């Protein structure tokens, strides 16, 4: 029996029942369309989170003092003074997988310009910090290494701070603002970055040489943390290991001793955040999958009714020479045609719906090739799976009884 003939037979049979055929397809169409749309929305939000994180510097490593936990008591990282400026210098001079590194010391407090004041955070860093955090100086310029060496009283401010301290739109460059009575000359303004995915205003910052903050503001001899950049995203594990070794050697830690610092990578953060959105995606896909299942059961239901309704036709086909396998194939092909056609229409509807969600609700969507492929495969499998039982029932009919069935 040639497959082409069976296909022809199945197509003719479907053609005789266009409305029912379409209604059956509807279940599959809705199922597939919702799977595609849900996955597109899930993936879209995941991608936008990823993009925001990598905007913050995807290969960024953060090194904090302390092991986080000691003797069962969790200690505040601020109280620990294990990281020194020498640690920074060692990593800067020796690490091969680290492209940029900056120490970080910070102090929160009130910034004052005349009669305007604004609470913000003063971060003491090196110019490398800009590369690590993907920041740019918009107006003016970054302070120099010379400013660091001399602990110069200069700062670079974020746009939010500028707006708060200079509400009349004056040019902040060259102006002196005060932080804890220490005058700082504004030498540059950072390019606007907006809020990040966690709702933090990334423009609410004031950057100064770390030496200035250490000596003039906090009067400390340790640093509160280090920001580093791995050469690229894939090397952040290597960079992390390298820093660990350098710091352990520098701190003269014995082999069995715990690290007195901890390294966090942006990758971890990114993984954590995308695992949340992954869970959402799985949840959405589950709901959509259930609707696909319901669609499949719809196919089975209709195929069953169809077999009963067409008992005489099946009997006739057998009488004129159709074998069981021919009848089985015919009904299976009918089920597969319904599910595959429904799947293709569903994919189109899903793509259209994703696009509408993007245009009307402004949600980020991203349709992955795999989700389209997956839906298509699931549809075909659904067709075979749910078409099989009714088809077998048809094939096992007794032609003598079937042909005289009323």
């Amino acid at each position, binding site marked *: *029996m*040639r497959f082409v*003939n069976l296909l*022809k*037979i199945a197509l*003719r049979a479907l053609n*005789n029942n266009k409305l029912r055929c379409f209604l059956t397809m509807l279940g599959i169409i809705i199922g597939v369309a919702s799977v595609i749309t849900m996955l597109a929305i899930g993936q879209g939000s995941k991608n936008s989170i990823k993009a925001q994180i990598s905007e913050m510097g995807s290969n960024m490593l953060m090194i904090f003092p302390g092991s986080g936990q000691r003797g069962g008591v969790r200690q505040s990282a601020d109280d620990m003074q294990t990281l020194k400026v020498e640690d920074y210098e060692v990593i800067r001079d020796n690490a091969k997988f680290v492209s940029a590194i900056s120490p970080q010391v910070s102090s929160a407090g009130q910034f004052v310009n005349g009669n305007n004041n604004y609470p913000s955070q003063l971060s003491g860093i090196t110019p490398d910090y800009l590369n690590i955090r993907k920041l740019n100086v918009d107006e003016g310029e970054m302070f120099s290494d010379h400013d660091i060496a001399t602990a110069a009283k200069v700062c670079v401010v974020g746009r939010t701070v500028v707006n708060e301290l200079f509400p009349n739109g004056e040019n902040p460059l060259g102006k002196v603002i005060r932080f804890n009575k220490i005058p700082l000359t504004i030498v540059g303004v950072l390019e606007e970055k907006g809020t990040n995915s966690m709702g933090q205003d990334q423009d609410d910052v004031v950057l100064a040489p770390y030496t200035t903050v250490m000596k003039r503001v906090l009067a400390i001899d340790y640093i509160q943390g280090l920001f580093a950049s791995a050469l690229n995203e894939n090397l952040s594990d290597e960079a992390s290991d390298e820093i660990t070794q350098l710091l352990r050697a520098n701190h003269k830690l014995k082999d069995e001793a715990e690290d007195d610092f901890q390294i966090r990578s942006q990758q971890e953060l990114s993984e954590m955040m995308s695992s949340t959105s992954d869970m959402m995606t799985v949840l959405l896909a589950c709901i959509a999958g259930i609707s696909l299942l319901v669609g499949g059961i719809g196919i089975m239901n209709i195929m069953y009714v169809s077999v009963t309704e067409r008992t*005489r*036709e099946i*009997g*006739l*086909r*057998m*009488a*004129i*020479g*159709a*074998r*069981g*396998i*021919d009848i089985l194939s015919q009904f299976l092909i009918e089920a597969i045609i319904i599910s595959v056609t429904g799947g293709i229409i569903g994919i189109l509807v899903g793509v259209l719906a994703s696009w509408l969600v993007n245009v009307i609700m402004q949600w980020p969507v991203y349709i992955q090739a795999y989700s389209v492929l997956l839906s298509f495969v699931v549809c075909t499998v659904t067709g075979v799976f749910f078409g099989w039982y009714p088809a077998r029932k048809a094939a096992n009919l007794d*032609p*003598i009884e079937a*042909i005289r069935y009323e």
Partner: protein
Amino acid sequence: MSERDIIVIDRIRRNFVVGDETVKALRGVSFRIKEGEFVTIMGTSGSGKSTLLNILGCLDTPTSGEYLLDGISVQKMSKNQRAIVRNRKIGFVFQNYNLLPKTTSLDNVELPLLYNSAFNAKERRERAIKALDAVGLHERLYHKSNQMSGGQQQRVAIARALVNDPVIILADEATGNLDTRTSFSILTLFQELHARGRTIIFVTHNPELADYSSRNIVLRDGKIVSDTINEHPASAKTAYDALPKEND
């Protein structure tokens, strides 16, 4: 008339087990049918004629006895082999036509050839047109089955039975659903096919039809009670012409 036996059945028995009772539908039926015969098989309901037809049509197998169709022993065949025999050697005509609904005459007639991979689309079409010509429906090739009268539908069904060039045509009460006039026109068609050398078995409970066949076998309670050759069958065409014409 050739002497080739198309059908040889020898002491055919068929028992059905219903619950714990055994119903003997056929109790040893034997006959031979030669090529070119037009045989009517008669009997009241319960006589076993349907069971006999099912066996002759390879839809069913006898409990015991021998059945040779065109020289091939059928009763040992598997279901699939019998399906192929039905497809290649038998043409069925049923009481209720059994055409596919909403399907054109051509597609209906082509159906048996779709289950035979020896034919391509062009050959199928040619044969179907030829078969429809033979039953006088060459002007209704593209009419759908639900747009035709009972007589026309039965003609399509006969064309479908002819299309695979079978060794035998099995008709099951083929005129049972038709009015007298149409019955005679269908009967005329059967006689024409017979005249062209077709072997036909016509199963019916209507005793009048025996006059129009070349041989009549009567069954009662699963046994043959008479098997008579009709040397001079009446012409269905004459009977048809003699019927009062419908004036409305």
